[in-house]
């Protein structure tokens, strides 16, 4: 496989091509929609062409991305590099590359998109072309976030993601769609604008001393961040963190998420949960940890972040427990799962970080799949309330089977993908934060309770609603959507080694970068004397430390 990929120069063009394919598809789709509207007055036939073009584009993108799995070298650092100057006077390059962290998110995106697009095949029947073109643009932007190697490009891609999602929620969403779309947009916009300030500050600090041109490449950012004062680094950390915390979403910045999820069409929810939220945790791994290791190691900052993460884990689970709407329940379970990811990242052990990566991947798969399943139910009954269902397993046996698989993956039953991640996070963070790990483990029980209860109310219980007697089971399209997801769920659950092997070197490197700072912080605390650069921030941090450990 590798020889073949080399022979076609795969590594040189794969990333820009993956960004270009959806864009070209979107352009074609938009043009086709425009012509069809003008010449043929639209109609179902032209809508069908729109759907198939979208599916073909996503499928092509997935096929292209598959080569990454084999061509990727775990010890190779940044790979598949591609770089052209964009705004040379501002030190901005259009620079792409991926490493052991981003490859999984890129693959997750390209894998889920062709499946997600099938979910709206029949339920989206107005302005089909625009709807799908927005998804194609969204895909380019999401891939761009994970591929960018220039902070400016990263920011631009990060922001582009907002607009298609804003319109998808706002135009094709549910009853309170305008409210949800605006809330989603403004929440994320505030955070990311603060990140913009941080990016600018770093880029200007890295300016060439002779020409005065700023430099926004990741390398320059990493180089310059270590030379800044501790105060500057602390402020910059919070500037970046504000963007990520909203996106993840970390408690208490999560309130946009349930609204956005509930109002979005199925495909939008899938992307939101599976990929958009990962942009936040990806940002933590990509920027917060390597750029500001001493701030991350600072006991106060770390305790606060970990505290919020664990509160999110428990709070998300508790709130999910009382939901009456299936989609809202899954949305809150996302808050809980993403808290677990943050716990894994800030516990700063190699195992917990690997676990955090695994939870990201499996949350993308299982929550994405759950939203797909809820979408099927909604298409049939136009409601998501638990009280409207019961005993569906009898009329929809296939549906029951797949929902069972998704639910097991979501609550981390051994043998499914979810188990690997949660186990690694809890085991890894137990080494450094035993109490937090134990508290978070409670959430595993809680999530089992609320998801299994939901399962009981939907597919078991007596079949006592007359409307449910004639519900058709999953059709071929829906089975075709779920089979690949279910396969991957079990594949990762039973054989996670190929994934872990690919992410381990990069994460090890990250942990080694930070460990000295953690050790220094611990030593400082033990002796009570500031060893490093003494700053007002560090001193107050020591005196008001929250004793979480």
């Amino acid at each position, binding site marked *: 496989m590798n020889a073949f990929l080399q022979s076609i120069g795969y590594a040189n063009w794969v990333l820009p091509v993956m960004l270009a394919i959806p864009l070209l598809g979107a352009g074609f789709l938009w043009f086709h929609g425009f012509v069809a509207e003008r010449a043929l007055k639209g109609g179902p036939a032209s809508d069908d062409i729109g759907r198939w073009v979208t599916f073909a584009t996503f499928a092509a993108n997935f096929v292209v991305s598959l080569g990454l799995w084999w061509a990727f070298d775990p010890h190779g650092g940044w790979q598949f590099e591609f770089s052209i100057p964009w705004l040379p006077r501002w030190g901005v390059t259009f620079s792409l590359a991926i490493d052991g962290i981003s490859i999984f998110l890129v693959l997750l995106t390209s894998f889920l998109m062709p499946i997600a697009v099938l979910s709206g095949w029949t339920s989206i029947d107005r302005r089909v072309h625009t709807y799908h073109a927005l998804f194609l643009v969204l895909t380019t932007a999401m891939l761009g976030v994970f591929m960018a190697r220039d902070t400016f490009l990263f920011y*631009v891609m990060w922001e582009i993601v907002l607009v298609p999602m804003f319109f998808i929620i706002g135009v094709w969403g549910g009853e309170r769609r305008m409210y949800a779309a605006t809330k989603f947009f403004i929440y994320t916009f505030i955070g990311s*604008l603060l990140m913009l*300030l941080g990016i600018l500050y770093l880029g200007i600090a890295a300016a060439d001393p002779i020409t005065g041109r700023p430099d926004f490449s990741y390398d320059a950012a990493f180089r310059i961040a270590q030379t800044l004062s501790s105060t500057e680094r602390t402020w910059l950390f919070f500037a970046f963190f504000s963007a990520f915390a909203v996106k993840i979403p970390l408690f208490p910045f999560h309130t946009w998420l349930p609204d956005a999820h509930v109002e979005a069409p199925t495909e939008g929810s899938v992307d939101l949960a599976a990929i958009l939220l990962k942009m936040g945790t990806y940002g933590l791994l990509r920027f917060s940890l390597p750029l500001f290791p001493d701030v991350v190691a600072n006991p106060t900052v770390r305790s606060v972040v970990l505290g919020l993460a664990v509160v999110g884990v428990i709070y998300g689970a508790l709130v999910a427990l009382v939901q009456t709407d299936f989609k809202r329940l899954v949305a809150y379970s996302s808050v809980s799962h993403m808290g677990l990811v943050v716990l894994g990242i800030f516990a700063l052990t190699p195992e917990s970080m690997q676990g955090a990566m695994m939870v990201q991947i499996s949350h993308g798969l299982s929550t994405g799949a759950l939203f797909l399943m809820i979408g099927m139910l909604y298409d049939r009954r136009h409601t998501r309330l638990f009280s409207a269902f019961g005993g569906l397993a009898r009329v929809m046996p296939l549906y029951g089977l797949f929902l069972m698989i998704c639910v097991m993956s979501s609550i981390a039953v051994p043998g499914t993908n979810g188990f690997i991640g949660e186990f690694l996070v809890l085991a890894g963070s137990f080494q450094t934060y035993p109490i937090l790990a134990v508290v978070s483990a409670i959430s595993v029980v809680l999530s089992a309770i609320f998801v299994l209860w939901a399962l009981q109310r939907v597919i078991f219980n007596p079949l006592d609603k007359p409307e449910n007697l004639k519900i058709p089971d999953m059709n071929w399209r829906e089975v075709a959507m779920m089979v690949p997801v279910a396969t991957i769920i079990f594949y990762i659950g039973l054989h996670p080694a190929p994934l872990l092997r690919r992410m381990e070197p990069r994460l090890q490197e990250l942990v080694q970068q930070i460990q000295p700072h953690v050790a220094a912080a611990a030593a400082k605390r033990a002796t009570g004397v500031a060893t490093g650069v003494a700053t007002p921030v560090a001193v107050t941090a020591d005196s008001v430390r929250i004793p979480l450990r």
Partner: protein
Amino acid sequence: MDFDLATPFGLTMALGPDVIVMAGAMVLMLVAAFLKDKPHAQRTVGIGAIVVCVIALGAVLMYAMGGRTASSGPVAVDPFRWAVDIIVLVATIGSLALGIDDNDREQINIAETHVLMLFATSGMMLLAAARDLMVLFLALELMSISTYVMCGINRRSPRAAESALKYFLLGSFSTGFLLFGIALTYGATGSTELNVIASAVAGGLGERQLLLNGGIALMLIGFGFKVSAAPFHMWAPDVYEGAPTAVTAYMAAGVKAAAFAAMLRVWTEAFPGSVDAWRGPLTVVAVTTMIVGSIVALPQRNVKRMLAYSSIVHSGYILIAALTITETGRSAYLFYLVSYTLATLGSFGVVGAVSKQNEGKLNVLDYSGLWHERPWLAMSMGIYMFALLGFPVFGGTGFFAKWYMLDASLAGPLKMPGVATALVLTSCVSAGFYLYLVTLMFMKERPTGERVGHTGQLTRVVIGATALAIVFLGVFSSPLIRWAEEGSPMTGISAPVAGVAESR
């Protein structure tokens, strides 16, 4: 040296493009008098005015490419002036085009509207050139008085009358402040020429520094009024709302650009030596403008009022350029103005297209579901809103403009992270009203029976050209950045700024 400003001929040649506009205006005024009873008089004269502007634009480009220089005198011959001239002329051409369609719709068959706009434009171009406070004052008055009349040109509309009267009274009042400031500055430094003032300030004024500070403060008030900076912004919403839409576009884009150019020149050429005196107050004015504009815009339901407050917010952002007193600051100003002018012209174009005769259909709710009826109109408006919001790619140049302004505020000898944070946070607030219009246009259903009237050909061209320019320049920004960088150096400025840099 191409022009000797001490001789009348040299001075006239140095003012070539300005003279073209002025002469064109006079000729067109005669033409207008002869055409008085013809049905399409205003259209003919309007097209003639556009032609005059295009010729002037050609002259400006010729002067700029020729790299003309001049001796020190009352007017500047430098790249900054040409760059501002280009922005002002483009804004004028756009406003004239909108104005022709606007007058047809409102049935204002007064050809002199376009002539007045040309007079105002010649004032603006002179404003961009002025290196003497007296020339500056003359130019400002030429611009303002023409604008007062244009505001009230629609005699059937009581709102327009209110707008014109309000603008006139408050405008004259503020001019008084400006003139008094000029007098005090003259008293302190003994000159009205900017470079003489600068060297006097740099040499130390002793007791007269107090006099100069008073002069700067009064001039700040005068300029603050012209650029509608808080707390001198009160007139803007009422005037913008009442004036004919094309005139509002002209005021928001052109008048503001020219007033800012003059302010930037005075502040960077004459007053950098006493930066400590004006830095604090100007920072307060800039930040207050951002905050007041963005918050008060939120509850507005009249589109023109909303855009008026939006233009106040942007004044606050552009004031950062004056605060930086660096070349980056001036480049950022030029870049920002291009982006802002395009978005403003376009958005008022859409407002004109949607509105009905006698200023109907100006409520934001009249934009509900516009996408379903007029997709291109709605999409263009979406682009302008995202551009004013400063959003990348979808807002095109708007994002780069804000980026440039942030860059200017964080780079250079005087770092201003506080002002940069204010810019960012008020941008978030402004998302509240820009997005509201977008949500209405795209996410609401069109009320049944609502039809948008026919959109004039010229308005279509303006809307299409500005939207395309915003998006295109938002991806391929390099030429625009180069243009802004090359347009930033001013004559006779490097020494005082270097002194500031050292003293920090």
